[in-house]
């Protein structure tokens, strides 16, 4: 599994996503894109749906991308990827491409859950091999924070605004991981921008999947969620630790939790950080808050049950193959020993009320 230094080394040797884009201050997307691209060995080509990422990185005539990159439209990134994949096999068969290449799709939640779902489903059913990464910031942020089917219950957006007669979005979000997993593709996962190691591991498993792989990654959006840019990592981390956003993977139909948040943190802690839920803290909204907690508890139980059901399979030798993923080449030397991520998590004296990572 890649650690942060391997990724750093990889990204210096193979720069894939540069600076100079016009994504917002504190945007969560670039960290996801860099982690994904630096967890994949060998050449990569990117297929991008219309989204914040697309418009803010390719303003003609400048491009941030240092890999082959194509955008056609909003709803069809999985279909474009299907065509690229078919062409890739043809070129390989003719000997016109010497090296194996990984195709990565980046699309937002709108381009995945809503308008792009049909194309995604078709490509998954055909078993086309690519890694589809949905960066999920839970609304149409590119066009100014309109609700999508990824927007959670109670969130205020410009098309599900809170007001005297409304408490934000009245419907819970769609569970895209379950929908994708129903296609019985080799690898499905849910990750979060804050948990980069977990994300990187999942990308590497996706890389080895012989068929389509799908990873839904929670990304912070400071203007859309209404928090300070500096809190982007904290907010996503709390989404995971409050069990709102379970980090799971579905391998050959078996579900498991890849991260056990403990101890239990009530979801209001996460909600309270974000302007989109501010209205829920007014008097009379207690029921909505309870409902959000109930939705999360219910979902968590469901995931937990599945996790327990597959525990024996994951302990088996067959499942173990998935963990035998080769690491990236080691070409780094630690300067001050190994005070890594895990170290800081255990060492509470450094937290000081900051992000405890």
């Amino acid at each position, binding site marked *: 599994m890649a650690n942060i230094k391997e990724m750093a080394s990889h990204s210096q040797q193979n720069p894939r996503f540069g600076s100079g884009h016009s994504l917002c*201050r504190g945007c969560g997307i670039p960290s996801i894109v860099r982690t994904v691209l630096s967890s994949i060995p060998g050449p990569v080509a990117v297929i991008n749906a219309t989204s914040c990422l697309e418009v803010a990185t390719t303003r003609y005539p*400048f491009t941030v991308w240092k890999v082959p990159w194509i955008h056609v439209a909003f709803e069809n990134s999985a279909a474009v990827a299907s065509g690229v994949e078919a062409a890739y096999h043809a070129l390989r068969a003719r000997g016109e491409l010497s090296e194996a290449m990984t195709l990565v799709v980046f699309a937002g939640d709108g381009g995945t859950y809503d308008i792009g779902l049909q194309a995604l489903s078709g490509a998954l059913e055909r078993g086309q091999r690519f890694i589809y990464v949905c960066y999920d910031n839970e609304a149409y942020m590119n066009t100014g924070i309109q609700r999508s089917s990824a927007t959670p219950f109670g969130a205020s957006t410009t098309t599900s605004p809170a007001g005297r007669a409304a408490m934000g979005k009245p419907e819970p979000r769609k569970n895209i991981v379950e929908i994708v997993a129903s296609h019985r593709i080799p690898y499905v996962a849910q990750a979060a921008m804050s948990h980069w190691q977990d994300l990187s591991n999942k990308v590497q498993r996706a890389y080895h999947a012989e068929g389509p792989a799908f990873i839904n990654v929670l990304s912070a959006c400071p*203007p859309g969620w209404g928090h300070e840019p*500096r809190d982007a990592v904290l907010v996503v981390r709390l989404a995971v630790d409050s069990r709102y956003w379970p980090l799971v993977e579905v391998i050959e139909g078996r579900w498991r939790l890849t991260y056990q948040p403990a101890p239990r943190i009530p979801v209001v802690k996460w909600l309270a950080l974000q302007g989109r839920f501010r209205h829920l803290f007014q008097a009379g909204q207690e029921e909505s808050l309870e409902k959000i907690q109930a939705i999360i508890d219910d979902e968590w139980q469901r995931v937990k049950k599945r996790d327990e059901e597959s525990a024996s399979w994951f302990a088996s030798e067959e499942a173990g193959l998935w963990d035998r993923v080769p690491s990236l080449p080691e070409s780094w030397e*630690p*300067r001050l020993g190994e005070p890594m991520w895990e170290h800081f998590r255990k060492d509470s004296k*450094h937290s000081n009320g900051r992000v405890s990572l």
Partner: protein
Amino acid sequence: MLEIRFHGRGGQGAKTASQLLAVAFLDAGRYPQAFPEYGPERSGAPMMAYTRIDEQPIRLHAAIIAPDVVVVLDPALIREQNVTEGLDSQGLLIVNTGRSDPTISLSDVEGSVLMVPADEIAQKAGAKHANTVMVGVLAALLGEPSVDQLVTAVDEVMALLPESARDHNRKSVQAGYTYGVSALRVLDDTREERRVQSGLQSSSAAVAVEGTPFARPGAMIRPDDYPVPLTGGWRMGKKPAVHLDRCVNCLLCWQFCPDGAVIIQGNMFLGFDYDFCKGCEICDAVCPTQAVHMVSETTKVGAWGELKEVPTS
């Protein structure tokens, strides 16, 4: 026709300022038009907004290229945009000195220039942004709309904001107006008069804009086709700085920096790239050893943000 161009960054309220002015001018018996110019950028990116005012209904729907007044909400924009474009010797440039940068030069401006400490005025009034202050200043310099008309317009344009925020903006627009009235006395000595005529300005028709042909078919771009746009100007007065002796090279700041503004070599942290840092402060938030600090833009640091002394706060 009076033409005003606002330069701001996404989130600084340039669009709101242009609309506020339009609403107040209608109250003053003029026909207004207000419109923003959007790009693919997000909050923090340079953008423009325009207001047109006339004695007759405005039929013109074109960008303002020869403005009478230019209002700059963020002085750092002077480096990123040609804020004086189309401004002639009778024109007026109003700049929020805000987090003033001594290296910014305005020596080649043809018209009169007024520097306004609008951030400070807004802060005193409790307002989050300097946009309403700048509208107040502008109205005072133009002689209309009145301060009452501006206050009413604040309530209309900011109807969705909480009452406290509206109150702060009412105060800041008033404070801006007061500042403008006093500045008018100083400015009057130097300013050439411009009497605004009804209808199309001849200067608007005279500016030549030419298109450029592009070579590569299909709008395809190669990585080195065009210089990388710098995004350092997006910072809002604070920059990250580092105590290298506290840094343990965990590279978390590198991992989470959205802008690729953390300089590393191998697995060593070296510092910050101010050309690209947008000032989101994530590096400070995730640093486990408090090696990273947000400091004022004017604080002297090493080329890559190295701090020599530990700040006391």
